[in-house]
């Protein structure tokens, strides 16, 4: 493998490589073929090093960088990103709960190009991990594994699998262990690969299964304690669910780029579509929705380092929020593209229909939207209590949202099964209002005040929900409102913390991000989605205000769509070089 690259350069190389691969990727998808060469090429570029913490010899220092790398893959092809990223999902529990020896061994394998799978799901149990029936029984200095994992990404292609297994026949939260299984070390015949599943999207990805029939693994395969598997998985999911927002952001970015190009090139009644007001509104609002997911995703991924104990809240929010916003935008853009959103060969190699089908998996895998809302509902009481007293880690929020601030190494051991404080990002959002007020933009201030007021009201309503094993749909609807609150708070903090650095500095100079435009766009999108019965009436603006906002967003979007790389530059590019030297 080549010497790993600086993450910024690597993202550019990913863009360059996958940008050229579009015809091949379309063909692979038609044949439901695994993108073997593309994944190997990404390995060659040094991407796996970003799945391995620096303390174990890799280059993973920042989940912000990882967000941008996954997003870079995802803005070209979701089969590739979902297949490649899986190795991080399969590894993360070892970084969290494994011994130094295990971590060293796994690090060597990942850096050497091994693929890792995360074998959690079993037939018929879906998201209900504690219903798992695969057992690990102590035997001769090791464990004997019996049972089936299906459907699992990388189950067949993966060299290693982290397997969740029942270690106490009674099960329960302390009744499962996690095993790092090297398939090459298993006795022949002790496992059977289950064939690849045919799926709607990500057709080429290795979604398959594995059956263990008395497969013996050495006791050194146990990650953490025999009863600690479920907790390790829960903590791992806090990181992976947060990072999945990068895939949704990348897919949205791809769709927006394809659609913007079409709107520029296609003429109706003699004029390019992009000059029509309704098209500018569609594109402007879609760009602002992308920014909404991006703001929340960035704040969330950085919060993993700085608000680590709160990730149980952050991850549930992001895993529900980002795919939902992305699916909305994909639906609107697909309507607009018409036949071009359906054809598998025409219009940029049928990329749109592929990404829309591919992306539909995001709301389902690694915990579906309802599963994550349920997880959030379980934390309503602590979130509401923390919000009511304004309990927030201000330093953590500042470090999470100041993009130029270097991130401390990931404090793996500080992840908690449940946040005790609630959510600092939302609880401290009110502190951004003076800065917004000082900007002297009445429209923006009205939107910001509305959003902050909504946070109080939503949290108060959450506090009134009684805990239940079967929460009401009302609670699910509240969870969805809270997700929007998190996005609004993230955007407010990001703007406040970076506005000084942004002014005049590349890559923001001359872009909407230098000013208040993007924040107005994001808060407008959120206000449209907040329920007035709960949050009060949203501020109203004259049509001219909306047109001006969309007009400026689209002017910039048209230029951005012609360049490779991120379509909204919150500034991955140069600032990371600054922060890491």
């Amino acid at each position: 493998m080549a010497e790993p690259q600086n993450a910024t350069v690597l993202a550019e190389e990913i863009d360059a490589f996958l940008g050229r691969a579009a015809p091949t990727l379309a063909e692979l998808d038609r044949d439901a073929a695994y993108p073997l060469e593309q994944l190997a090429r990404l390995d060659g570029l040094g991407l796996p090093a970003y799945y391995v913490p620096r303390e174990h010899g890799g280059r993973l220092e920042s989940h912000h960088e990882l967000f941008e790398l996954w997003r870079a893959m995802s803005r070209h092809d979701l089969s590739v990103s979902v297949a490649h990223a899986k190795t991080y999902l399969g590894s993360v529990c070892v970084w969290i709960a494994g011994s130094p020896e295990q971590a060293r061994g796994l690090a060597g394998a990942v850096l050497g190009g091994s693929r890792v799978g995360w074998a959690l799901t079993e037939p018929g149990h879906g998201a209900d991990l504690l219903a798992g029936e695969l057992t690990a029984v102590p035997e001769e200095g090791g464990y004997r594994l019996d049972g089936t994992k299906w459907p699992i990404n990388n189950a067949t292609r993966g060299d290693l699998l982290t397997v969740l297994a029942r270690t106490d026949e009674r099960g329960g939260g302390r009744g499962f262990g996690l095993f790092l299984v090297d398939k090459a070390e298993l006795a022949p015949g002790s496992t059977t690969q289950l064939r690849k599943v045919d799926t709607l999207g990500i057709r080429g990805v290795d979604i398959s299964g594995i059956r263990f029939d008395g497969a013996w693994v050495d006791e050194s395969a146990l990650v953490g304690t025999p009863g600690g598997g479920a907790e390790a998985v829960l903590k791992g999911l806090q990181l992976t669910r947060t990072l999945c927002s990068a895939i949704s952001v990348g897919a949205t970015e791809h769709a927006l780029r394809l659609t913007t190009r079409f709107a520029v090139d296609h003429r109706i009644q003699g004029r390019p579509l992009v000059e029509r007001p309704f098209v500018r509104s569609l594109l402007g609002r879609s760009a602002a929705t992308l920014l909404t997911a991006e703001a929340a995703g960035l704040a969330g991924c950085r919060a993993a380092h700085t608000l680590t104990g709160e990730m149980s809240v952050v991850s549930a929010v992001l895993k529900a929020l980002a795919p939902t916003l992305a699916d909305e935008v994909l639906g609107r853009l697909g309507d607009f593209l018409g036949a071009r959103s359906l054809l598998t060969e025409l219009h940029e190699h049928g990329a749109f229909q592929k990404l829309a089908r591919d992306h539909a998996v995001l709301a389902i895998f690694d915990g579906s939207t309802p599963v994550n809302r349920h997880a959030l509902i379980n934390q309503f009481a602590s979130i509401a209590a923390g919000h009511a007293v304004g309990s927030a880690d201000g330093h953590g929020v500042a470090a999470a949202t100041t993009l130029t601030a270097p991130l401390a190494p990931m404090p793996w051991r500080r992840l908690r099964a449940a946040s005790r404080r609630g959510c600092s990002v939302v609880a401290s959002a009110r502190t951004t209002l003076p800065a917004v007020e000082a900007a002297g933009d009445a429209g923006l201030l009205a939107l910001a005040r509305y959003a902050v007021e909504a946070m109080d009201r939503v949290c108060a309503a959450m506090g009134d929900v009684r805990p239940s094993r079967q929460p009401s749909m009302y609670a699910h609807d509240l969870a969805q409102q809270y997700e929007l609150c998190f996005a609004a708070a993230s955007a407010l903090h990001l703007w406040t913390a970076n506005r000084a650095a942004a002014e005049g500095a590349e890559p923001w100079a001359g872009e909407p991000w230098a000013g208040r435009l993007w924040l107005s766009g994001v808060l407008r999108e959120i206000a449209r989605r907040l329920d007035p019965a709960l949050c009060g009436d949203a501020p109203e603006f004259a049509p001219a205000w909306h047109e001006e906002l969309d007009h400026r967003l689209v002017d910039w979007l048209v230029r951005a769509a012609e360049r490779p790389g991120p379509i909204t530059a919150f500034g991955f590019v140069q600032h990371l070089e600054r922060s890491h030297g």
Partner: protein
Amino acid sequence: MADRASALEALLGDAWQETNPTGFRALLAADEREEQLAAATDALDGFAFHRELVPTSLGGRLDSLEELVAAMRVLWRRDPCLGVGYAGSSYLAAVHVWAGGDERQRRAMADALSANRRFATAYNELDHGNDLTAAAFRATSGPDGWELKGRKDVVTNLGASDGMVLFARTSDRPGSRSHSLFLLRELDLTSARLRPGPRYRSSGLRGVHLGGAEFLDYPVPADALLGAPGQGLEIGLRSFQVTRATLPAMFLATAETGLRITLVAAEERRLYGAPIVALPYVRASIARAAADLLAADALCAVAVRALHLLPAEAPLLAPAVKYLVPRLLKDVVDTLRMVLGAQSYLREGPAAVFQKLARDLAPIAFMHASRTACQAGLLPLLPRLARHSWLGTDPAPGEAGLFQPGAPLPPMDFTALGLGIPRTDTVAATLAAVAEQPGGGLPTRFAAYFRDELARLRDHFASLAPQDTTINASAAVFEAAHRYTVVLAAAACLGVWRHAGGGTASGLGEDLWVSAALDRLAARLPGRRPATAEERAGLEEALFRQTVDLHHAGRPLDLAGRP
């Protein structure tokens, strides 16, 4: 008609039966092969299905469009590829001939359809999309008839049909009198003057043949012209009133199948130690999907009946239906997807049909006019209605039978359709009537809410000048047209409910479906919804139970099944 639909259903057999050659298993396999299922098309040919498309006056079985919709739903419920590729394509062509052909052409079309011959309808040119007046494909008149020259792209069954209706430019002048329609009773695919293009592959409706062709001075006889030269757009727009109002009514059956699949899966799948059907979010999600389906059904039912009863209002209803209904159905599918979870993503297993129908429903948003084109088409119609009809004192024309699905209809007169801007909006007028009904419950409160929204829309559209409603209209005007379609759907719901006896005996049973549908429609408008969170929870639980009961009783999940 229930009889004809039952006969078709019996002909095709139990869709869930594994060994049924026209069941879901066989249909899924055909989809994977990107083919139409021959066993199904053979069976339908045996039934002479195409005679459903031929008016009784021409020897066919088409009495009322409502009955045609019921027959078509049998196909769409099972396989949208049959709906589009087998029946829909010929239907579209046929309507053009009924609306614009002379007696001889109509008879010829009737004979061809009675002989199970299939037709395509070729408008589309990729460069011009929904902008029909820009179509470049040309027909030139000569001594022996016409010669066709140009390309048609992404046309259903082009290259796989016996004949076609084709839209071509017959004058260089810009504007709406420069195109004509032709009925090609036969298409000589071996002609050197016809170069069929490759088939277009698509992610939805994969079994449907989407073709293209280059015509190289391809000759057609003089009598192929439908109507007079230059009348193409007019005949097309009249035909579209029929097809745009009726096709969404047919699509709806596909979403109903999605709801059934989800109900079955929800009762079987277990999570956290219990069937997921015990989870409140599953129950409410199913209720929300059912409510969206009912709202779509009410709007479709009224629009289809209006083609018979109020043809002057069809130019308004058809684009409104084609704009809103695909969106409602997409939301049905997306809501159900979150109940099915991973099963919604698998091309195998018990719920494999779901991913197919979700893919198949995606193209309905733009097939036969995109949602955006329909929305744009509504804009110029609304200011006049705002000034003269909405909540005005002028009484609406008789609404007898409009809101009564299943009640007898006069024969469909395809030549009665016109292109005039409607002066009245009978559907919307029902809002005020219900809102002012004394002593009403929740439906009356909803009626007042939607009436007030219509009043705001009236003020908005009444203030617009003609140049404000072109394709250059502001996003705010487009948004207002969206709101109008939501109000229209609400009015259709309330109209159907009122004429079914709602409001007189107002137990929850009778008010249930309409209240649930209206609550979902209200969520599509900005501002506060009239129902409280508690009322919503009660409605959704009750509608869920009712839907499950209907499902277990084998009854339709659309309006036809409601008490």
